[in-house]
């Protein structure tokens, strides 16, 4: 039952994750960075380049290339959001050791998971790389609010740049919104954030946005 979609097709869909220009559609049509997308994310596709020597850091888009392709998207991280596997994690490991910060995710059952996040990476990507169940329906293009996280410490919250209007627009629709809520795809690791604690808001989920009254459990 192998699907007839060519690898190229898949690359196209996957690459749009990184190359979307907020407020315009043209980027959806012509994703610029085709090189970065290797077989990931769609389980049925063979991980062709996983072991290939060419799939190294060189293929990671630089901030510059992303800026060209990402235009005025409020924040573009240096890394592209991949599925769970991506080809270059080991290659980059050594020289990034120093440039990582510690982040703790608290899942919906209150369990903590400590991870290291490279500077420049978004919390959404970091969560996905570490099997943390943070949704990211729009893959970081500020159009869904499913990557909602709660910053547990106000001091850390204040270290973040203020959310843009566009982020606030999506936060409006987030479930279980709090005073220190942010979108995971817009929180980018930087040195000052070392020690950040983020909670997934699952425990407080409700249908308030809908005017839906949740029934008692």
């Amino acid at each position, binding site marked *: 039952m192998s*699907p007839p979609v060519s690898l190229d097709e898949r690359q196209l869909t996957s690459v749009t994750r990184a190359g*979307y220009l907020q407020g315009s559609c043209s980027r959806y049509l012509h994703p610029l960075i085709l090189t970065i997308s290797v077989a990931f994310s769609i389980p049925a596709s063979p991980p062709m380049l996983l072991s290939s020597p060419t799939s190294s850091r060189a293929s990671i888009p630089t901030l510059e290339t992303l800026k060209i392709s990402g235009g005025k998207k409020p924040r573009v991280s240096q890394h592209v959001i991949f*599925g769970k596997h991506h080809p270059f994690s080991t290659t980059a490991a050594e020289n990034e050791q120093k440039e990582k910060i510690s982040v703790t995710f608290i899942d919906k059952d209150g369990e903590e998971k400590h991870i290291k996040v490279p500077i420049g990476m978004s919390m959404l990507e970091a969560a996905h790389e570490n099997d943390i169940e943070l949704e990211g329906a729009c893959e970081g293009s500020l159009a869904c609010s*499913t990557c909602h996280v709660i910053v547990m410490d106000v001091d850390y919250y204040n270290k973040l740049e203020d959310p843009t209007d*566009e982020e606030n*627009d999506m936060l*409006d629709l987030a479930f279980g919104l709090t005073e220190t809520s942010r979108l995971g795809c817009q929180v980018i690791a930087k040195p000052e954030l070392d020690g950040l604690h983020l909670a997934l808001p699952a425990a407080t989920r409700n249908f308030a946005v809908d005017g839906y009254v949740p029934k008692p459990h």
Partner: protein
Amino acid sequence: MAVFQARKWYSRSFSSLSSHPLHICVVGSGPAGFYTAEKMLKAHQAAEIDIIDRLPTPFGLVRSGVAPDHPETKIVVNQFSRVALNERCSFFGNVSLGTSISLAELRDMYHVVVLAYGAESDRILGVPGEDLKGIHSAREFVWWYNGHPDYKNLALDLKSTETAVILGQGNVALDVARVLLRPKRELAITDIANHALVSLEESCIRKVYLVGRRGPVQAACTAKELREILGIKDLYIHIQEADLLKSPADEEELKNSRIQRRVYELLSKAVTSQPSQPRSGQRELHFVFFRRPDKFLHSDNISGNVTGVCYEKTILKENGGSGKQSAVGTGQFEDLECGLVLKSIGYKSVPVNGLPFDNHKGMVPNIRGRVLSDVPGEHTFEKGLYVAGWLKRGPTGIIATNLYCAEETVASISEDLEQGLLTPSFPKPGREGLGQLLDSRNVRFVPFSGWEKIDVKEKADGSLRNKPREKIVSWQELLKVANE
């Protein structure tokens, strides 16, 4: 009979995946259907899921509802596609519950049936003249511009009038207004259906009225959509300044709702930043508050086309202790001329045979996704039958709402499994049975690989026109491409 055959076949060749596969059928491949499938796959290793949809194409309103100029919202189909490609999940397009197969048959073949078939009809206003020519529901208009195969031939006249009235001020109303007003070269690079693009390019509509029964404090849209329409280039925006005055009850509502506060702020800013008059020929968007349609007007000639709307002015009255305010008529009336009316007052689900249904609310009575039996006075559930999405909650909420909604339904299914209310050890024919039954009825279903062929073709056709895809809008061609 087919079911029986399937059962026989089934007991001979047992599934390799698990000794007791749990056969689940999800009806509807919109967000609710896919999120339900995803959560079930995760929660139950023995689950084998078939998603059926009446269309040859998956993704429900993500394909046929979400506006063409919102490509980023549609990225979620990547996630849904990964679910569909899971080896324990199959897609059966071109299979319609109620036509190709009955609910009773599905329940017979599967341990669990989850209905997530959305809301494919409209609420009506119930005012005189609602059937006049030139009056459509927003659902029809949206399906038309998004290339839904049932609405490619909608008789829509955009050339005989300059003025359109949209009833309602929610996000769907704003989508519709934006599509009418946005410069067409900006729409030309989206996945809008070609027939719609051609019509819109020739459209004479220059003035759009967005009409709401209540005030700017109660406007049902979100800030994102509002910001977008207010930002359309060279568009004159009109809001009556007096409408922006707030009562103490309004202040209270604003205090309690971040969304309403931010929407109100955007509307007030829009007023102050506008010139007092539009330039001649400029496109115009008018927000009209505190008006409810009383009747539709038409000329005396035989065309039967709508020529205007008569409104009653309203004021707000507090609604018990709820803090919400509702609109009540004042007895003052006013006419507004127009040649096109789009009603955006809500979608409504349709029942199928054998399904308990609340006709008034247009949804399935349920508790946390478990379908309540029709038996009056009693709280009994329909065994193995669940709902999710718009059919369960009514037609509100964003895509993400269906995620939480599906989680709730899946939690109910899991509880029922644990308590032994479902019987997965009793073999059911599941997928094989469905396949045989469809075969015996000559229903040629479209598997996910068939949709992928459509997808590839649409993207290829689109790239020739600088569009992300050129949607195939006819049933015949969709099926042809899928079966190639």
